[in-house]
């Protein structure tokens, strides 16, 4: 009889997290450069410059894309840490649930800040 070890292979999404982390990092880097360039253009960081930069609708959209990249990036990273260190399933589920709730809350807060009226 031929003995064969069954190779158990789990979910097929390992590459997706890996790619998301890289693409979101690029988005964040580009946004950081854009923000720095705008600050230089406006000659420093005062209220007037800040208001002019964020008064622009396109820049607010870019800020939103940046924040979404940040939150998604953070999710992949924190989830990886939970996978390495929080071995009991219950604990891992709890950690991941709290993190998801926090990240969603941050997303809502971002929308509130960007389009809530204070900046317009």
């Amino acid at each position, binding site marked *: 009889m031929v003995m064969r070890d069954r190779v158990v292979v789990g979910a097929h999404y390992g*590459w997706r997290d890996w790619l998301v982390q890289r693409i979101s990092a690029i988005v964040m880097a580009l946004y950081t450069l854009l923000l720095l360039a705008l600050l230089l253009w406006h000659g420093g960081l005062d209220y007037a410059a800040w208001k002019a930069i964020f008064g622009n609708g396109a820049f607010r959209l870019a800020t939103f894309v940046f924040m979404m990249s940040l939150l998604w990036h953070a999710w992949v990273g924190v989830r990886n840490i939970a996978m390495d260190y929080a071995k009991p399933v219950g604990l891992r589920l709890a950690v991941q649930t709290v993190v998801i709730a926090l990240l969603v809350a941050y997303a809502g807060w971002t929308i509130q800040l960007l389009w809530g009226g204070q900046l317009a």
Partner: protein
Amino acid sequence: MKFRVYRYDPEKDAKPYYRDYDVALESTDRMLLDALMRLKAQDDTLSFRRSCREGVCGSDAMNINGKNGLACVTNLKDVKEPVELRPLPGLPVIRDLIVDMSQFFKQYHSIKPYVVNDTPPPERERLQSPEEREELDGLYECILCACCSTACPSFWWNPDKYVGPAGLLAAYRFVIDSRDQDTEARLDNLEDPYRLFRCYTIMNCVDVCPKNLNPALAIGKLKNLMVKRAL
């Protein structure tokens, strides 16, 4: 020459401990393994593996002053005294410097380390062009000493789920082999979040490899192939 060696015999010792040795070397002793043989003559209860004594078999891998390496290719001139010798980290200790490599080899076997080709074999051999053969350079030389995998934090944390640098180097060696037909299944086998993607490019593997191979590069190429295929 002064040594400080990790000692543990699970049948006798409640806990591992360190023992200090002072070994008189002969003028012909060049490598750390030579000194270890003198040490063994002085205290024959000390256990370690060795065989070829020239960096080919991979038996005498150990942690030398905090860094994994082969005792037989580590020059005595390059190590600081007292030389601290420990077993490879992250694997169960059988005795002294001998570790249980079952988990390591289980991961190695899980990537099917052999050419899979179901077409009828030609009369003489499956030929490769010089370029195709060149792809295997830097991959086939691995001696499976486990220095890399046992230096990898991802392997320490998930030795049952993460294949580890040695296994992944071998995986890439067969993925890129022009004679192998099992590429799709090989990539499928590594596609989950653990087996390949637990590598965070820490590069300890590259740092310690006694054969100067680059598992991190092979792992990067596997990740690229995986993403290219998926998109």
